[in-house]
């Protein structure tokens, strides 16, 4: 084991133990109760082979260039991603990649966050994507984090150097057993680089997950972010974004819940450079007794002139689903265009009647209305195979809701 990494882990473990568990009195946990029970953390895993995963997940799609499967500590990479480094994080740390060490030693990363410290201390493996300056990866690369133990932590690092371009698909998967998953991802974009980052979260029904994401967008860079959450029991995603001069964060994200599922997007966007832009749409479809939380704050720093920001949450409630939407703006400069909004609607007879009056059968009309809320996101998925898989996951949640 690497000494420097052990030291970093031990420090994080100490911070985890010293920080209190968040309670309902904490602003960012008012609507989300995270339960944590220490588990076996990667020991005694039942699934060790890639072939144990569903075949559509464990094989490289024809429209992809490479796939990395993370089964706990084990990692299997197939396909080739020419010009870029695409491997598991532990292997890269062991080989001493220059760009990794400072990142894994960064004690400042979510230092106030108990769960982020837990993942920092206990991660077993993760994905490492490094795209050198000027390299453009045309075909998407994909990694799958397969949680196998009752407690499992992953750490991922995606780095694009100046002028680089890539499409990265990240999937989270677990079976139906009770699990706690921690996931800490860092995305660092160099000057004028461009990343399309797609997240498909399809954790098992009894998995609780704490996802932490730190995004640093360098000057003129673009991040097109497309997350779709369909799985898990209670899933909280905290995303902290730092926008440099002229950079652009473009998000179209969706959560599709049923039963007692709970999805919490806790977003913190910091416009630090002038002329930076952020445009975020989050779509929620909450059926059964599922709950959604949109807790989004945009802060425009004093020196960040001529920024533009827009954040919106749109919710479709089915059954007894609910959503808490809390968009916030903190503007510390004058020349800014900023907007935020939240809408909540439910499928009603008038909408169904309208579609039916145009010849569309009732069942199809119901599907159209619910599908409409996630289609914007699925349409952005970079290849047909992934779109089809997402549709299957969404389709499995439809029916009998109205």
């Amino acid at each position, binding site marked *: 084991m690497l000494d420097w990494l052990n030291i970093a882990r031990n420090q994080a473990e100490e911070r985890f133990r010293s920080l209190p568990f968040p309670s309902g009195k904490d602003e960012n946990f008012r609507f989300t109760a995270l339960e944590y029970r220490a588990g076996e953390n990667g020991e005694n895993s039942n699934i060790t082979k890639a072939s144990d995963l569903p075949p559509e997940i464990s094989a490289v799609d024809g429209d992809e260039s490479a796939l990395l499967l993370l089964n706990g500590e084990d990692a299997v990479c197939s396909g080739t991603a020419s010009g870029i480094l695409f491997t598991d994080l532990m292997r890269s740390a062991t080989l001493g990649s220059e760009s990794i060490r400072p990142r894994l030693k960064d004690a400042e990363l979510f230092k106030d966050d108990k769960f982020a410290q837990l993942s920092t201390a206990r991660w077993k493996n993760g994905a490492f994507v490094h795209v050198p300056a000027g390299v453009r990866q045309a075909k998407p690369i994909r990694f799958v984090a397969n949680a196998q133990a009752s407690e499992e932590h992953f750490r991922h690092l995606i780095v694009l150097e100046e002028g680089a371009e890539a499409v990265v698909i990240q999937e989270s998967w677990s079976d139906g057993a009770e699990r706690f998953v921690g996931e800490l991802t860092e995305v660092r974009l160099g000057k004028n680089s461009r990343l399309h980052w797609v997240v498909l979260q399809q954790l098992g029904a009894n998995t609780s997950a704490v996802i932490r994401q730190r995004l640093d967008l360098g000057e003129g860079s673009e991040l097109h972010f497309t997350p779709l959450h369909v799985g898990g029991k209670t899933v909280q995603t905290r995303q902290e974004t730092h926008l440099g001069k002229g950079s652009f964060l473009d998000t179209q994200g969706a959560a599709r819940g049923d039963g007692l599922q709970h999805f919490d997007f806790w977003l913190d966007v910091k416009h630090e450079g002038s002329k930076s832009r952020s445009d975020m749409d989050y779509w929620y479809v909450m059926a059964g007794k599922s709950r959604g939380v949109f807790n989004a704050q945009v802060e425009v720093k004093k020196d960040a002139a001529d920024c533009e920001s827009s954040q919106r949450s749109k919710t479709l409630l089915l059954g007894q689903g609910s959503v808490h939407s809390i968009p916030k703006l903190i503007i510390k400069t004058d020349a800014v265009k900023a907007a935020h909004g939240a809408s909540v609607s439910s499928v009603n007879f008038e909408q169904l009647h*309208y*579609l039916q009056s145009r*010849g*569309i059968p*009732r069942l199809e009309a119901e599907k*159209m209305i619910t599908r409409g809320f996630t289609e914007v996101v699925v349409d952005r998925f970079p290849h047909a195979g992934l779109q089809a898989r997402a549709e299957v996951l969404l389709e499995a949640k439809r029916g009998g809701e109205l």
Partner: protein
Amino acid sequence: MGKILPLLEIRDLSVEVENKEVLKGVNLVINPGEVHAIMGKNGSGKTTLSHAIMGHPKYKVLRGDILLNGESLLGLPPDERARRRIFLAFQYPVAIPGVTVAQFLRSAIMSVRKGEVEAKNVRKLIKEEMLKLDIPDSFMTRFLNEGFSGGEKKRLETLQLRLLQPKMMVLDETDSGLDIDSLKRVSESIESARGTDKSILLITHYQRMLSYVKPDFVHVFLEGKIVKSGGAGLALELEERGYEWLESGKTEDKIADGKAAVTLN
């Protein structure tokens, strides 16, 4: 020569909405190719009639029947009625966030004109009709009726009417919310959808649309019944005199049993 089968026949129709009887024995016969206008004060039951024809689940038929080509529509869901080529242009079309105009139009066309229009030609068909109504391409990616102005909603309703090619068109105050130029364009578009086998039931408050879409018959609604029927001249008379003269006891030609004053077949 046999007797012409009416395209739409309404027989002694009584309809209840939220436990209140709104239509109280309406009789109306519309033959192929005819344009009928229904005029009347707010709350007289005009819109209820349109929803009853389309089969809105909130509108419960208490008595009577609605027949299309001699077959009863009662018991058929709205989508089946649409596939039998009845079209209702709504007075207040609902917004459906998340469903784009393009997705909606495609599904509607493929449902109503199944076997008649090939999937590969749908996009071209929509584009052609949009051009005729001067509707910009940006409509296609917008969510259905969300954030639309009154005029935009009516133009979208008219676009649907053109695309779905109904036989029986029910237009519920399609003229409201339109400026003069839009009214002219929409009216011309509706007028051009007329045909020897297609009929229009036009519900309106005002004469102005009837200047473009010439009615063969005009009916006046009062308290859930047709109280007077006549030719196109009746609309002008109503414009001039209002409705008060038709109210209880003020006219001799009021129809006591609710039947249309003009025998239409």
